[in-house]
């Protein structure tokens, strides 16, 4: 696996909306690099003849009928929100995006 670069970490931090200082970026390049290296061991597994699997059980088509079930009350729905306003979740503004 190619080495993780500082630019990679900065890009990922942007996607995750995390502000990292220069010092944190430097530290993360090293720490994440170690983690990736450790995880990369799985790439040595002999999988040439193995079908990719996304679910441990060989089942398909688990569906439900299109029948309404009761929703939460708005009070319950909003109960865990740090801030609410006008029966809505209040979130910090998102910069420069729409």
């Amino acid at each position: 696996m190619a080495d993780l670069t500082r630019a990679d970490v900065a890009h990922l931090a942007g996607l995750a909306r995390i502000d990292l200082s220069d010092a944190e970026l430097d530290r993360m390049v090293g720490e994440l690099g170690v983690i990736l290296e450790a995880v990369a061991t799985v790439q040595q597994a002999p999988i040439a003849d193995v079908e990719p699997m996304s679910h441990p059980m060989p089942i398909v088509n688990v569906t439900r009928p299109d029948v309404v079930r009761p929703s939460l009350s708005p009070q319950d729905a909003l109960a865990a929100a740090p801030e609410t306003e006008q029966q809505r979740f209040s979130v910090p503004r998102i910069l420069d995006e729409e």
Partner: protein
Amino acid sequence: MSTATEPVLGFDEALATYDPVMGLEVHVELGTATKMFCGCPTEFGAEPNTQTCPVCLGLPGALPVVNEKAVESAIRIGLALNCSIAPWCRFARKNYFYPDMPKNFQTSQYDEPIAFEGYLDVELDDGSTYRVEIERAHMEEDTGKSLHVGGSTGRIHGATHSLVDYNRAGIPLVEIVTKPMLGAGERAPEVAKAYVATLRDLLKALEVSDVKMEQGSMRCDVNLSLMPKGSAVLGTRTETKNVNSLRSVERAVRYEIGRHAAVLSGGGSITQETRHWHEDTGITTSGRPKSDADDYRYFPEPDLVPVAPAAETVEALRATLPEPPAERRRRLQTTWGYSDLEMRDVMNAGLVELVEETVAAGASPAAARKWWSGEIARRANTEGEDVPTYAERLGVTPAHVVELEGLVTAGRLNDSMARQAWEGVLDGEGTPTAVADARGLELVQDTGALEAAVDAVIAANPDVADKIRDGKVQAVGALIGQVMREMKGQADAGVARTIILERLGQA
């Protein structure tokens, strides 16, 4: 965000040098009773956060289960678009951090769409057909709605914070993606509009969505790039988001062609980005840089098992497909006896269903077309609505047209009175009969009064009367006009003509 107007090259000039390439992505909200992965209802316009549960709020430990009807609808859409249906496919997580998705990912499909490789034939105004190749139709879920506060007019710029309503989060969507559409040339804007209109009619006929663009249940993103004439290399594209009316689709394509051409012919290069469409000014402005698929870090959704429709299931769903709109149109045109032009006008105005219902309710095809495409179309256009939406809002129905035509054929109203009665209906004064009663619209049935008026007019115009007696029947028009004036318009001009001719020995 810059709102400065960017230079735009004239349309003809742009097309003299470049060939446009379009790609359209249409999101359709399915008309299911419940959401894609939970049993929350999907009513439009409910009070905020009254249609949520642990699944669609992304609370820890909640497990999604797929809505059976949503899968069936997606398969039927795929079949109607002549697609292959995947015998086995999965959902995927599309990861992004934005408050409109409480889970921090959208459950979508990535490289295994339920339907792929199809086409939709689109008829253009001149009667020719353009085949739009469909790349894929996949299932996903809608996002919540954000309200930006503290700034001006709900815009994000200057906002201090945002308020989110998750009622819409998790409503089933099908996204239909075309392959690059080449070779449309100067007709690109028309092709784009015709494609969306044809798709809308198809989805409506399938009864999988109410396809109300103005309510957001059908939304369109327009990808556009230009390549120099003769080149086979695709240019850099922009993606204009939320182009949500048929007219806007046409305008947005036209605008982006001109803007791209201005940049390219000035030696510049196009930035790959999303663009915002501004309905009011008819321009696009720069949005965020387009994310790569990599940035979304798609991976198979571990909480959902694969969807694997059996071949028999697919064939059973194929048997439920309605008559294809193009065939249906030809059949209706023949039944109704409309000319090509009349049929096209009815279609372009979105009146096919309304005319069909009106004819079924007992009106003649001619009357149905006449009343739905006249005054009401003018008023709907002023309001920026299509006729069916406008009529529904006003409570004007096919039964009103049937009743109006009945008043004319029964001889109570002439054409000009019927128009007045219709205006009254549109003004909210009640049924055609109620309007006619209230406004005193009634042809005088008393032939005594009409005969007296005819005699008076003949006496006052001896010269004209003599001409008619001598066989110049066409002079009767002048006398009919005067009789109608005498009768204050409340007479049947045809009857007046008959009486005049009788009196002057020309019957």
